[in-house]
């Protein structure tokens, strides 16, 4: 969807969070010198148009005990990746699932599924379930554990543009 300058002002004012105030949209409107009803209309429009995925709490998986996150990557036939990706994405422990390009010969994996667990064992049991689901369709797979968070700031849009 196309955002205008006013939408972008709202994005900039709220991308780090909404004010924890009984009337958060009114506080945003005041800060931007806008009408609260206009702010709410624009936020609803951005929700409908997909610029906002959702509004609510963004949990910190690490602090909540989900300290193991495994990026699991699979090599499946390109012709079947859509069908197989839909099955893997439907598993209740998969938080993200994408088809991405290979970079041969270094990188042969074209299906990515992110899993989270409280232990390495928990993650490996989940990977076993994906492996069973894919069976012979998976020619190879790997689990890439994150060993360190180097940066985590979320989306930041620039002042201009």
């Amino acid at each position, binding site marked *: 969807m196309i955002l205008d300058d006013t939408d972008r002002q709202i994005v900039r004012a709220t*991308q780090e969070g909404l004010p924890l105030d009984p009337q958060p949209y009114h506080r945003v409107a005041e800060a931007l010198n806008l009408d609260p009803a206009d702010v709410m209309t624009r936020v609803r429009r951005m929700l409908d148009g*997909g610029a906002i995925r*959702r*509004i609510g709490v963004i949990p910190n998986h690490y602090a909540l005990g989900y300290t193991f996150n495994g990026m699991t990557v699979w090599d499946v036939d390109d012709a079947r990746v859509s069908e197989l990706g839909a099955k893997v994405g439907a598993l209740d422990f998969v938080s993200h699932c994408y088809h991405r390009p290979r970079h041969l010969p270094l990188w042969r994996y074209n299906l990515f599924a992110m899993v989270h667990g409280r232990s390495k064992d928990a993650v490996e049991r989940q990977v076993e379930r994906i492996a069973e689901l894919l069976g012979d369709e998976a020619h190879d797979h790997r689990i890439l554990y994150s060993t360190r968070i180097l940066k985590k700031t979320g989306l930041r849009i620039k002042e201009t543009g």
Partner: protein
Amino acid sequence: MMDAADRRIINALQGGFPVSERPFRDAAVELGLDEGDLIRRIERLQADGYLSRFGPLYDAENMGGAKTLAALSAPEAEFERVTEQVNAFDAVAHNYQRAHDLNMWFVVCSDTPGGVKETLDAIEAETGLKVYDMPKLEEFFIGLKFELDEKDAEDAA
């Protein structure tokens, strides 16, 4: 320390926060809390680090911009230097060290269509390393399913 109401907030309020005159009051009704209590609990969950943030989750690709996942292989001895160089770009939203030859994986977001490629080119120039671009070709539906149970509360306490 989290209690049952805190877990309910985390499970139920990952989306659907109302866009209304008094959204905390409206959301509180659903959770069996009052407005002030809900606001204070979110404040505390955020201060204690259980929440990264409270508010809208924006999607760069649906804002006329673009986003990608990229990886590079940083020599162990230069890992810290490369980390600083990559993190210095505002367009780099997340960056993780991962156990693989491709040992640095980062998400690049831009509010312009060409911004991602420009950033990846600039990272290659700055670090002197090849950057592997892995944009999503297709996204499979996953819904919202990060749920806390009793055990999580113990682990997180």
